[in-house]
């Protein structure tokens, strides 16, 4: 895929909840299991705080894939999981308008000991970026939105 940003290394943002994915990432570290360094993990209390605009801005600023690693239905926060899923779905709509592949954004339930699922998520994002490359920037709305091919949704994934 040809983009103007082809030569820069793709960046993956992992928004990981302190009660889920962030601890999972720590567990991976404690096991000394390697994964690529273009992954940037930010701790979050609750994934429900981010509105769709936050994700679009992050793509615009330089991230090529974002995975929200929350605790899913195990979240200590009532309503977090439903609200986060709702926001992500809303964001897919906005991504479509910008011709951004929805697979770049993913919501994954990663628990505090989900070592393997964490690594699989990272691997999945890496593979995706190998396939579709970096985000073409700046993001602009195309004249006509092409129909979305089947099976390209980012999706909500539950590891636990």
């Amino acid at each position, binding site marked *: 895929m040809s983009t103007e940003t082809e030569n820069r290394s793709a960046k993956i943002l992992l928004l990981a909840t302190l009660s889920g994915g962030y*601890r999972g990432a720590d567990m991976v570290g404690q096991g000394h299991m390697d*994964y690529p*360094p273009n992954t940037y993990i*930010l701790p979050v*209390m609750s994934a429900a705080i981010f509105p769709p605009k936050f994700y679009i801005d992050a793509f615009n600023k330089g*991230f090529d894939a974002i995975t929200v690693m929350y605790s899913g239905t195990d979240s200590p926060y009532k309503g977090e999981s439903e609200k986060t899923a709702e926001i992500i779905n809303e964001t897919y709509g906005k991504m479509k308008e910008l011709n951004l592949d929805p697979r770049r954004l993913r919501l994954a339930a990663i628990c505090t*000991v989900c070592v393997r699922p964490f690594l699989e998520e990272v691997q999945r994002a890496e593979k995706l970026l190998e396939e579709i490359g970096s985000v073409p920037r700046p993001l602009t709305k195309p004249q006509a939105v092409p129909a979305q091919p089947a099976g390209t949704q980012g999706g909500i994934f539950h590891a636990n």
Partner: protein
Amino acid sequence: MPEENVNKQAQAGQNPKDEEPRIGVYVCNCGGNIGDVVKCDMVAQTLGKLPNVTVAHSNMFMCSDPGQKMIADDIKEKGINRVVIGACSIFLHEQTFRRTLERAGLNPYLYYHVGLREQVSWVHHGTPKEATEKSIRMMAAGIAKARNMKPLEPVRLPAHRHALVIGGGVAGLRSALDLARRGLQVTLVEKSHYLGGRMAQWERVFPTNEEARPLLKRLIDQVLAEPNITIHTGAQVAGAKGYVGNYTVTIRQQPRGVRGTFPNEQGVMDVCPIKQRCEFNYGLSTRKAIYRPYKECVPEGLVIDWEHCTKCGECVQVAPEGMINLEEEAHEFTVEVGAVVLATGFQPYEPFYGEMGWKEYPEVITLPQLHRLLDDEGPSDGKFYWNGHPVRNVALIHCVGSRQVEGVHRAQMDGEVNNYCSRVCCTASLSMASLIRQKAPDAKIYEIYEDIRAYGRWHEDYYTRASKNNVTFLRYYAEEIPEVRRADEKAENPLLVKVRDHLTWGEEIEIPVDLVVLSVGMMPNPVQDLMEIFKVTPGSDRFLLEVHPKLRPVETAVNGVVLAGTAQGPMNIQESCAAASAAAAKVSALIEQAKVELEPYVAHVDPDQCQGSGECVKVCPQEEAIELKTFSENGRTFQRAVVTPANCNGCGVCVSVCPNRALDVQGWRLDEYEAMVEAIAADIPAWEGAA
């Protein structure tokens, strides 16, 4: 929540001085754990050039006294008013560094922690250049956040001076007693119908060789004499609401079906037609559906096994009138507590069918069963007999269900093997060897072990004593575990144990024996329900997980929920009691003053931005956490959202729906994240020329 706290809280998050950020940046080498991969000096040097960074250092151990002093000195001498530290996991040292800031007179929340060890150096071993670049970017994000950080105040809440202890084994009892003696109210909930847990099932206990039950009785008597403790046996937690300081816990209690004690208890048990496996004797005997778990059990008296009782009424006929009620129902009640001690204990490993002859040959038993067999109050009155014959040759095989190796041992239901050491079984086996020697002076005793781990004070004596007492030791290696098989029909002893003995340089030896004892390891009691109710997590060994094994050894990640005893991992009685006392100390430090301090991470409304849309109120999942209030100013009436911090748990659902960006979760603000994202994605010119 008291009004003044609400007001104080509402003001928090505002920086009165709006001072220019002077950021101190500190990069920890972690004694090479980080520094062997990440060029910490270069990280500090690069970050030192960023705007608002006043000092940037790297240090061998930031958590050490000199490391902390460096930060404190910079705060005092160089006017540092924000701190960013790149070190090990946030879960290990966040509190340490917060206290450093506090001691130096800086608000402890003006600090951001970047996990450079678990999330950089330990996962990017092979790519040091990229790991260094990543560290710079992650720290730059921290600096970007720090520029926007505001001082915060913890939320202070009233707390019930009342603790709930779950589990009435030795650990739960010890915790309850310590808490009560500190003046706290204690509710102790025990699932079974008697107190004492596993310890009641042992004959004698190392390292003092005291009789277990009289020793336990001393502790139970002290607990019973303590007016601050309320005990519920046959009871389990069914649910809980609330948070540290203010839990409302629902307890479900099974009835005993029998009121008090009466003289003809044996006669009542005799007439019951139902026979069940006696769990107290690990299945070496049977009991009735109306039974007494063991002679001196507390509470004393009979109890009905509702699962197997057919309500035939035979027992009611024989018992004094009104003593037995077969229609009694389980009931639920609630208690209000400030903190919870999880002391739910362990269960012995259950070998699978055929594992070293288990269940395949009746002459294979487990170490807990051996305890019952040799107990004077056990099923054979303490005689070392099996199948009616004296046991003359016995082999004790160590490490069954412990220190398992993937590929050699069969995995548990969750697909994992028990790769941990159960720690107590070596000394427990050795002490049993000595007891066997006393009971059967001529018996041949074989201890077949992988390693002897008699690690505690006086434990080694058991090994020495066994060696002097003509116990034969044979050593196997994990990859070739001993085999147990049936001997020829004509053979004198029913079983043969085949072992490659590495004390005789790998010689293959076959030992004819009458009895094989599997020294089984420890597994946690199944407490999935409690994990869900209290949001605590297990470690990879399935035992409940502490925050840190050395630094915060009895606390869980959930405020106000602590661990005691073997619910956390294999321990002996001494260690279980030490952990239980530590848990009690933690709980009392937390709720003794009838108040707790919580993190200030709750929703905060910017009154200048709020237009009173009410979207936040509509989506808030918490009760009474946010509401619209009417205000008047200069003759104008308007509505604004107001947060009640005590009821807000910081879920942030309100943040994303506010059309005016008037809401944020304090400490985790959206503008901070935006700045962090920008910082990670930005080019780092100083870095380009480095490496």
